[in-house]
């Protein structure tokens, strides 16, 4: 290859330096947030004058934070289940189907990934208000499922493309009905894709804020909405603590995904 890393010479050093800089620029704010969440300053001053766990205590003592976290988890879990179920059916159609407009449908199902979220949020807000779904869990889950669908379809469709249909045919000749063959042979064979789809759909809902702001009501808010709201009303280090936990959970899920992938692939 023309741009082989090993043959870059002195450029290698420059490239490494630049990459490190970009990574640092992206990660440092999060490192600061985590550090601030343990700092004793009431005003989020850096460097913190001392260290404390007070903000975490405040966080867990406030039922509205716990409530928001549980709401987020509930909505994200339901979103993941729904997105995986729809994503699974859609993937079979997109990968195995032979019908007119298949590519258009594929593009359509993936648009939520590229469509400006705020446009989608406004549209859904107006639409759901009429349907009486605004501010309801069902509304939240439906809107988030639309956003999560591309993240469910991509890994499942990829796994299904890599799965030899002859294996399913073999199960059918063996006496399994077409449905049995899919449930007992095909789904277990593409479980890595399904699992990735579940995690990514969960995360797509878990840290989603734009649609959530539109959908939220005083009695129903997700964690990102609560953080956003608190940020505007009073700037307390409790926000830093909540944000740190949000990051921690996301990180944990990503690590679990990576580990499981490695385990399932061997």
């Amino acid at each position: 290859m023309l741009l082989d890393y090993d043959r870059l010479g002195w450029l290698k050093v420059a490239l490494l330096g630049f990459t490190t800089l970009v990574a640092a620029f992206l990660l440092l704010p999060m490192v600061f947030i985590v550090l601030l969440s343990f700092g004793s300053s009431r005003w989020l001053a850096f460097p913190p004058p001392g260290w404390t766990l007070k903000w975490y205590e405040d966080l867990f003592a406030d039922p509205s934070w716990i409530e928001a976290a549980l709401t987020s988890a509930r909505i994200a879990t339901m979103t993941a289940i729904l997105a995986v179920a729809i994503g699974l059916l859609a993937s079979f159609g997109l990968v195995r189907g032979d019908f007119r407009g298949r590519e258009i449908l594929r593009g359509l199902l993936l648009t939520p990934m590229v469509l400006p979220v705020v446009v989608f949020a406004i549209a859904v807000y107006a639409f759901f208000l009429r349907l009486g779904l605004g501010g309801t869990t069902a509304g939240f889950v439906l809107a988030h499922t639309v956003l999560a669908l591309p993240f469910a379809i991509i890994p499942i469709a990829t796994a299904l493309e890599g799965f030899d249909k002859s294996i399913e045919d073999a199960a059918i000749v063996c006496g399994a009905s077409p449905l049995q063959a899919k449930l007992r042979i095909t789904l277990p064979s593409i479980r890595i894709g399904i699992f990735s789809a579940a995690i990514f759909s969960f995360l797509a809902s878990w840290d989603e804020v734009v649609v959530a702001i539109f959908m939220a009501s005083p009695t129903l808010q997700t964690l990102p909405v609560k953080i956003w709201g608190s940020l505007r009303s009073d700037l307390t280090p409790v926000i830093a603590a909540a944000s740190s936990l949000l990051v921690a959970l996301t990180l944990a899920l990503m690590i679990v995904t990576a580990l499981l992938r490695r385990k399932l692939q061997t």
Partner: protein
Amino acid sequence: MTEPFLSIRKLRKAFGAFTAVHDVTLDIPKGEFLTFLGPSGSGKSTTLYAIAGFQDPTSGDVLLQGKSLLSIPSHKRNIGMVFQRYTLFPHLSVAENVAFPLRVRRRPEGEVKRKVADMLALVRLENFAERLPAALSGGQQQRVALARALAYDPPILLMDEPLSALDKKLREEIQAEIRRIHRETGVTILYVTHDQEEALHLSDRIALFRDGRIEQIGTGEDLYLRPTTEFVAGFIGNSNFLAAEYLETVGGTARVRLADGSIVKGVKATHKLERGQKARLMVRPEAFRLRPADGNASLTVEILDTAFFGDRRRVVARTGSGDEIDARPTSDSAEVNSVDAAYGRQIFFDPAAAFLFPA
């Protein structure tokens, strides 16, 4: 007449304007090993898939013991099948793969255990029961697939080029296994391949497919020694074709004139030809001799290359009219020195072992 075990009646399969299988009719007795041989695209796999139920024929019927299979969905046909590609269930162990057809049939656990053990013994993979398919070689995977296909005692076993992904040595090894398993189980096997050696090695009978039709069906000997068409003669075994002109039939044998003007007498007359009609004379490589025997025809050739293979020699030669000949005469000692000189030689063959086809 007793009813045939498996009967294919005027099976036809069209894909749009293209007809892959033209009215194939075939009766297969119980316990037979029948091979569908033919080049790719000749309709052999399509016929097999129609029997398996993966493709609905356009017309015609497939009868098993007199009952039509066509209205029965694939999974209820109770047919065994081994595919060209590796189709073991990747997440199940070898034993669970073999057990799968029994489990979907809800057979009792004891029977499943016993049958899995029997089947793994049949394919000699008893020690691999707990392995996952990814830990097996290609040959072992196909043997497990065979065990899985036989676990529920299907009346028919379909095999779609099961050895084409394996290397030559392994292929021969598993061919021997398949023969043994056919002998031991007595199952009726329909086997698809494009490899004529494999077909000759394995089958009781061979159906040679060409362009969606069965060109000839018979034992390997029938196809090799008594080919009815030039296509069959050319497909089975190596063959040499010499341009010829039909002259006349005298006393049941034909006389032809070759391109270099020489006359060959005593050729078997199997086809009806017009006097003066262009024809092709087919001679098997092993029918050539370096020394003439009684009644042999001779060809004046330029010898291009010779090689020694122990029991046989290979002589590559070209006739005066440009036909290339690949001859494999036996290498008896009297002939050893006669091929050393490279030019202006004569080569001989028994006309009774030659075949005449219309060109």
